[in-house]
């Protein structure tokens, strides 16, 4: 029963704290902004660079590794590679 309540709370609460990266998610149009957003979401930023006008950031969280590409124009994730 207790488990059910916890699950219920989690199911209700999680959309408010979106921590899963998805394409088209808006992270920001500047490098610092994107880095901060990812850090706030619990990701550890490993490397960030500009690639063909997009921001490319390597992040890890727990046992997950991602390469995130963010458009500087829209601020959205254009490509997300789970590594």
């Amino acid at each position: 029963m207790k488990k059910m309540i916890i699950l219920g709370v989690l199911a209700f609460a999680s959309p408010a704290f979106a921590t899963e990266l998805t394409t088209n998610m808006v992270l920001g149009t500047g490098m610092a902004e994107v880095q901060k957003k990812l850090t706030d979401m619990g990701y550890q930023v490993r490397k960030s660079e500009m690639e063909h006008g997009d921001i490319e950031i390597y992040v890890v969280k727990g046992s997950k590794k991602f390469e995130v590409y963010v458009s500087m124009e829209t601020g959205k994730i254009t490509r997300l590679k789970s590594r």
Partner: protein
Amino acid sequence: MPMNNTMNSGHSGARSLVVWDPLVRLIHWSLALSILLNGVVVDEDGNLHKWIGYVAVGLVGVRFVWGAVGTKYARFSVFPLNPVAALKHLTAILKGVDTVHLSHNPLGALMVYNIWATVIVIGLTGYMMGTIRFFGIEWVEKAHEIAFSWLLVSIALHVGGVIFDTWRSGVPLVRAMINGRKRIPKDRTVN
């Protein structure tokens, strides 16, 4: 005993000796292929790149074991890592000495160990890049790339050395790595 099997190669007086056993040849060409595939053909972000990398390191690993327990000319003991000997060999070349080495000549030996070590560094850093601890860590990626660049330089030198030594010693070395036999011109001293 095919190891020291001498036969007439068709050239008057030339001797043909079995030098490279099938495993040595298989490892040589498989390693060359894996370097070509991973360096030029395969997507470096993909799983295939990773698996070919494991294969390359595995090939070097098998060669290391074979260097200890393998056939006569495959053993480390016949081509020790010896920079002094390599230097001596270089001066001998400059003096016009045309001795034939049945295994690797001392300069070639240096290159062989260099290439194996470089492949291991590339494999190790490549593996590290896929771990949580080293994912996205810049120095690991740089080391992987620099080691690969060094490998390309080494391969160019290796191919250049093979061409030069084929001309110098009169032994067709590429053919030897294909059929295992070194055809030694009759007037050459064998070392």
